[in-house]
């Protein structure tokens, strides 16, 4: 089986513009940045959440707190992966009670990651509202979960993979659609 790159979905500047737009949308829908906090889901949700928070500083001049969440312990397939799961730490230094939290991830697919993230968040307290922001929504949901803030919707087949490559992690900056070919 080979992995072939089929198409580039977003360039670096398109990613940047999309994050700017998402930052505006979140501030608009939330009526400002009061009680607002971003929670990046490890790994690629983390730099995305930080960049959106940075864009918000440009809009409102306010530092929106950013936390990171490792969902490994909340995965529903953990019994299959436990023996080689490498646990990362979560880092949410603010109280989540009564906060307006925006979960941030790179790709929304089955919805299981978001289900796990919500379980993790509710172990920390009782947020007032939790919404979801993703760079790419690729469909094929297995849970009743939708994103309130979406960068781009992409139609995909189940064998295809969306790879979000970010400079903080991958040393390049673009979104590509790849496929597994026998």
């Amino acid at each position, binding site marked *: 089986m080979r992995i072939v790159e089929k198409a580039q979905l977003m360039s670096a500047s398109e990613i940047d513009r999309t994050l700017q737009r998402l930052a505006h949308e979140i501030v608009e829908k939330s009526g400002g940045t009061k009680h607002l906090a971003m929670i990046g889901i490890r790994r690629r949700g983390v730099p995305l959440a930080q960049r959106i928070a940075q864009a918000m500083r440009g809009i409102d001049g306010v530092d929106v707190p950013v936390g990171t969440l*490792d969902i*490994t*312990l*909340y995965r529903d397939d*953990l*019994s*299959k*992966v*436990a*023996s*080689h*799961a*490498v*646990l*990362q*730490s*979560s880092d949410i230094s603010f109280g989540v009670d009564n906060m307006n939290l925006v979960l941030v991830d790179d790709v929304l697919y089955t919805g299981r990651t978001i289900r796990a993230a919500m*379980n993790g968040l*509710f*172990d*920390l*307290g009782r947020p007032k509202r939790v919404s979801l922001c993703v760079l790419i929504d690729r469909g094929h949901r297995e849970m009743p979960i939708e994103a309130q803030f979406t960068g781009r919707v992409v139609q995909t087949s189940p064998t295809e993979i969306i790879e979000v490559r970010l400079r903080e992690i991958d040393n390049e900056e673009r979104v590509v659609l790849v496929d597994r070919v026998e």
Partner: protein
Amino acid sequence: MTHRFRDLLALEPLNADELTFLLDQSKSFQEIQRHPLKKLAVLRGKTVALAFFETSTRTRISFGTAASRLGADTMNLQAEASSLKKGESLLDTVHTLDAMKPDCLVMRHAASGAPEFVARHLEIPVINAGDGTHEHPSQGLLDALTIRDRKGTIENLNVTILGDIKHSRVARSNIHLLGKFGCRFTLCGPAMWVPKELEEIGASGTQVRRVFRIEEALEDADVVLALRVQNERLHEPALSLNDYILLYQLSAERMRHAKADAIVLHPGPLNRGIEITPEVADSPQSCVLEQVTNGIAVRMALLFLLAAGGSEDDGQQATGASPPRNRRSTDQKDATDRKDVKDSSHASH
């Protein structure tokens, strides 16, 4: 990099890389102790058998709490109430427990090597919760985690161990673990408790020296581990309790010989006024309560790693097949038997 562990029977056979992995995994569970809601579901539906053939309060409660915070159920066997009193053999007892289908056995026993013996006869993972004078691996790990949190590292530290080292499995697990990170050990106590052969117990290259004057033993120490004095092991008139206090008690005045930022560990339960003064036990240098909290995190990490199971049928992430568990019979005991990590493999990403 990840590692596969079958059992955790001792720290001696583990290398620095494997030990670091265990400490890193524990870190995530330290966070959970700070959550308002401390319960996870990762071991939901699993059962952890706690078999304490030697009485224990804190280790048993710590493992039990760790299991319950992971969502597991526990079955408890305690020495006083067990059928051992009725003459059942160890092997019959653990086979009976095993027939109740637990997913993991946590075991303490007064005989060194008992958990290893049991592990050879059971399919399920066995965690040694202290065996005789051999090892207490989870205590060694929680001590190292506590030291790493306070000092930022467990490398190249001067570690002074005080008290009855000869009979201490805690001291042995600490030396086996910290010795692999270049720590140097000074053992101090009455000569009958610090025999010469202890100088050889670490891995080759581990510096272990014996010193019989406590002020000298504390000189330049980064970490001081005070062990519990067990009254029944004091042999009057060779050594009375008063003599021990006079010669070896860890007092604030004696602590001044250690480095200014030295920390004090004690596995508990504390004998205030005997091996340690209340002043030292309650000082900011003392890590006694952090050790207790970290104990739950370490034990959660161990249970998660060993009892969560899985991966055998999951070829997608693990490279290198995991061989089926093959228990050797007792008569085939050989040197590799002590190797607790039966297989370690790397995840593909």
